[in-house]
C-alpha cells in the first residue's frame, strides 16, 4: 500500500510542478466551454466535459511517457507492476478531480439550469476514463508526438460523430456526453443509466488493458533466475 501511495504522490508532485502544462490543462476546457457559450448550453457543457477528458488524457500520456525509463529500475528496486500503474492512475485521477472542480463551478457561476449531480457524474466519468486512456496510449506509443496526435484524432472523432449512432458508443467519452444530455436537457433516467454503465465498463476495460501492457513490459524475463541469499 505504501508503494502504491508513494507512486501516486510522486505522480502528483511531478504534474503539479509542470506549471505550463497545468495552465494549458485548465485553459483547454475553458476554451471549449466559452467557444460554444453563445450557442446552445448543452453543446457548451458537452465541450467542457470533452475538454476535461482531453486535458487529463494528455497529462496521463505525458506522465506515462516520462516514467518509461524510470519504471524498469523501480521494478528492480522492489515494486511490482501493479504498484506502478495503479499508483500512477491514482495520482492522475486525483489531479483530474482537482482540475474538474473549477469547471464544475463554471456553469453554476454562469447561471445554467442544470442537474448538477449529473454534471458531477459526467465529470467523474470523463476523468475516470481519461486517466487510463492516456496511460494506455502512452504505454503503446513510445513518443509523445504520436500519442498526442492519436489523442487529438480520438477527441475530434468524439466531437464530430453522431451521438445517437451505434458507432458513438465505441468512443471512450460517450458516457460523459450521455450523462451531460441528462443533466442539461432534463431527459429521462435512461441517459444517466446508460452513461454511467458505459463509463464504468470503459474505465474498467482501459484499466485492464493498461495492466496487461504494463505486466508484459515489466515482466520477469524467463532467462533470469533469482536465487535468494542469507
Amino acid at each position: 500500500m505504501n508503494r502504491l501511495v508513494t507512486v501516486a504522490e510522486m505522480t502528483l508532485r511531478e504534474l503539479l510542478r509542470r506549471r505550463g502544462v497545468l495552465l494549458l490543462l485548465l485553459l483547454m476546457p475553458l476554451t471549449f466551454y466559452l467557444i460554444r457559450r453563445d450557442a446552445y448550453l448543452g453543446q457548451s457543457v458537452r465541450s467542457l466535459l470533452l475538454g476535461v477528458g482531453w486535458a487529463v488524457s494528455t497529462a496521463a500520456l505525458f506522465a506515462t511517457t516520462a516514467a518509461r525509463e524510470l519504471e524498469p529500475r523501480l521494478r528492480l528496486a522492489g515494486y511490482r507492476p501493479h504498484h506502478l500503474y495503479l499508483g500512477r492512475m491514482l495520482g492522475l485521477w486525483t489531479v483530474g478531480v482537482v482540475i474538474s472542480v473549477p469547471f464544475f463551478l463554471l456553469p453554476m457561476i454562469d447561471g445554467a439550469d442544470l442537474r448538477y449531480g449529473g454534471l458531477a457524474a459526467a465529470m467523474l466519468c470523463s476523468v475516470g476514463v481519461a486517466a487510463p486512456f492516456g496511460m494506455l496510449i502512452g504505454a503503446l506509443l513510445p513518443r509523445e508526438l504520436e500519442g498526442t496526435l492519436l489523442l487529438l484524432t480520438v477527441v475530434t472523432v468524439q466531437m464530430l460523430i453522431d451521438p445517437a449512432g451505434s458507432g458513438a458508443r465505441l468512443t471512450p467519452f460517450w458516457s460523459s456526453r450521455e450523462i451531460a444530455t441528462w443533466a442539461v436537457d432534463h431527459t429521462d433516467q435512461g441517459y444517466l443509466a446508460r452513461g454511467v454503465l458505459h463509463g464504468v465498463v470503459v474505465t474498467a476495460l482501459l484499466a485492464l488493458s493498461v495492466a496487461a501492457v504494463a505486466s508484459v513490459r515489466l515482466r520477469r524475463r524467463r532467462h533470469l533466475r533469482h536465487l535468494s541469499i542469507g
Partner: protein
Amino acid sequence: MNVDDWLRTLTAELHQRRVAADAARHVVAEVATHLREGGGDPLVVFGPPQQYAGAVVESIGTAPGPRPGPVRLHAEGITKRYRRRPVLRDATLTVRAGQIAAVIGANGCGKSTFLRICAGLVSPDAGEVTVSGRLGYCPQSGGTADFLLADEHFVLVGAGQGVARGPARRAGRAAARQLGWEAGGDVQARHLSGGTRQKLNLTMSTLSRPDVLLLDEPYQGFDQGTYVNFWDQLCRLRDAGTAIVVVTHLLNQLDRVDTVLDLTPAQTTGWHAPGVRGGHS
C-alpha cells in the same frame, strides 16, 4: 592540481590498489607533512599521484585482498540479435561477491545490451543469467524523473524496499556524499548538470544495497575528482562484498578490476581473467 586535490587522489589510488588502510594513512600523512613543510608543487615533487601510488605499492606491497566470495552473477551463453544483426554471441561472465568485472568493447558491440540482459530488462535469444541476491542497475542515461527532487528519488526507491522516508532520505544523502555531492536541496532533477544527474542515477542504484550492481558507463559527465570518488566507492562496495559489473571504454581502469569481458567482435584482448570466456567467437 593543488595540494589537497593531489592528496585526495593519492588516497583514492592507494585505496583502490588495496594498500593496507593503516599504511596508506601513514604514507599520506608523511607526504602531506613533507609538502606543507617543504612547499612546492606536488606534481613536481612527487609526480602524478597515480605514479607515486604505484611506487608506494612496489615498495610496501598491498594488503591481501579479501577472498572472492560465492558466485553472485553467472551469465552463460548470452546471444542476442537485433533483426538479423548479431550483437552478442555466446557471451559468458561469472562474478563473485567482492569482485569488480569490466565489460569492454567498441561502440555498438553490445555492452549495454549485455548489461540490460543481466538486469532482466531485455530478453536474449539464447542463454541464461543467474543472480544471487538483490540486483541494482544504473543506466547510461535517463532513469531519473525530471520534475522530482533528489530526496524524492531516494524516497521513491526506498519505498520499493519498504524503507521509511526519513531513513531513505538519509541513506541517499550519505551515498551521494561519497561521490562528493550534497544531495539535499530543492533542485529538480532536470536542473542538475549532466554529471550531477549521473551521481543521482548512481546513488539510486546503490540505495537498495544490492548484492549485484550493474553499472552502464555511469561516470559520463563526471569531473576528475568525482571520477576518483566513483572508483573509490566501487572499491568500498567491492570490499563490502558486492559483485559489480561496470561497462567501460576507459581501458586505463582495467588494472583496478578483477575480471574483464571483452565484447569486441572477432578480437581478443590477450587477457582473459578467470571467470571470463570472451564475448564473440
